[in-house]
């Protein structure tokens, strides 16, 4: 499998060249264009329960398997959101990712949901999934991606976290004092400690949703 990432960081897209018989698993709706010999199979990955678990974390219920039949094939995949796409090679290792950041993978990768135990995270709408195995993982961001090599400790606004290696530990905390927490608009932040790679995104969804809200049509009450 060969891949090319284009349009970074604005409207990034991953174009994969697959050999005959090779397969890529992608989130539902990610296919932009493909050669005519790609076969599609829709699965609830991990069986029905696996699919349900993923639906809870906001990831689409179904993934599609695209296989190049009879000949080499190409397929272009893009996430739903404006932003970046990056590819990471997992060599038996583990990484955590914000649900909704998953785009596709090639190889033997196990996707497990891990609902973060700290209730504060859930309040921020941040659910993590765990990826383990060997292969290539494609993930996306809302906004541009920045990779930060953490060595010591580093603070990130929780809604800007995309992914991180499992060699890092994290702690959700209030920023500054009480007044700062409530009034600063920063809410909760995440302190990462240890040594490892962290990916952040330069935009976050909740403030965008809040900004869009007044533009929605108003429900007419029929009394």
């Amino acid at each position, binding site marked *: 499998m060969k891949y090319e990432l284009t349009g970074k960081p604005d409207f990034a897209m991953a174009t994969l060249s697959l050999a005959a018989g090779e397969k890529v698993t992608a989130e539902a709706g990610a296919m932009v264009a493909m050669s005519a010999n790609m076969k599609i199979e829709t699965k609830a990955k991990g069986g029905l329960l696996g699919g349900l678990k993923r639906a809870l974390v906001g990831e689409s219920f179904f993934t599609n398997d695209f296989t190049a039949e009879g000949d080499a094939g190409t397929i272009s995949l893009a996430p739903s959101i404006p932003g970046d796409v990056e590819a990471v090679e997992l060599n038996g290792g583990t990484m955590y990712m914000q649900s909704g950041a998953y785009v596709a993978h090639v190889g033997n990768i196990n996707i497990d949901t891990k609902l973060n135990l700290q209730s504060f995270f859930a309040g921020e709408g941040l659910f993590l999934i765990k990826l383990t195995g060997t292969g290539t993982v494609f993930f996306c961001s809302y906004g*541009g991606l920045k990779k930060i090599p953490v060595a010591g400790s580093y603070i990130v606004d929780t809604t800007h976290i995309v992914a991180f290696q499992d060699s890092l530990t994290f702690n959700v905390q209030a920023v*500054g004092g009480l007044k*700062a927490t409530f*009034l600063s608009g*920063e809410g909760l932040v995440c302190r990462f400690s240890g040594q490892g790679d962290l990916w952040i995104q*330069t935009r976050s969804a909740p*403030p965008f949703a809040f900004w*869009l809200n007044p*533009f929605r049509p108003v429900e007419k009450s029929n009394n």
Partner: protein
Amino acid sequence: MKIEIIHRPSFAMAQVDLAEGESFVSEGGAMVTMTDNINIETSTFSRGGGGLLKGLKRLLTGESFFLNKFTARGAGHVAFAPTLVGDIEQITLDGSKNLIVQSTSYLAGSPTLELDTQFGGMKGFFSGESVFWIKISGAGELLVNSFGGIFAKDIDGKFICDTGHIVAFEDTISYKVKKVGGWKATILSGEGLVCEFEGKGRLYMQTHNAPEFGKLIGGKLPPRKQ
């Protein structure tokens, strides 16, 4: 202090490197990441703040009421980004001119800059658009954000700009809000009101119009209760 802006013009983020004791001020909610040695102080607009009611009105329009002041306890950095996708521009003010900035375009700035939301003028602007204007004076670094790419035009004479595309302008140029073309054109052209600038000075514009984008996407979202 050093400022670096990445991912322009679509998802710009500004990283401000601070030496020990140095500070930077931003609107609430703008911090993305920072080193683990920064103090945050939250304060309200004190200069010409306008009282509680005016502040609340601004809160309803989505603009944060509060400013955060970040002070480094040792060498470190804070990175800022706005809510919407778009650009960030660094403008160096030397104190000789004031800059009038659209409220949603103010992102962050040196603590030496003065922000005044209650200065006179800006009447006749944006009836129906929930935007207010900030007069920025003093010397220091200013970060403005936009929905779209930011570009500057040095005006020497007259220039017409659609009101939704104004980011900031030097107060050496004057403006007049006008209808575009005749009556039919105003109602039907989709341009609505435009701003005719006159004089000599710099105008900062953005390529795209956030409320128009909001209306287009918003119209496709499920309805909400009033």
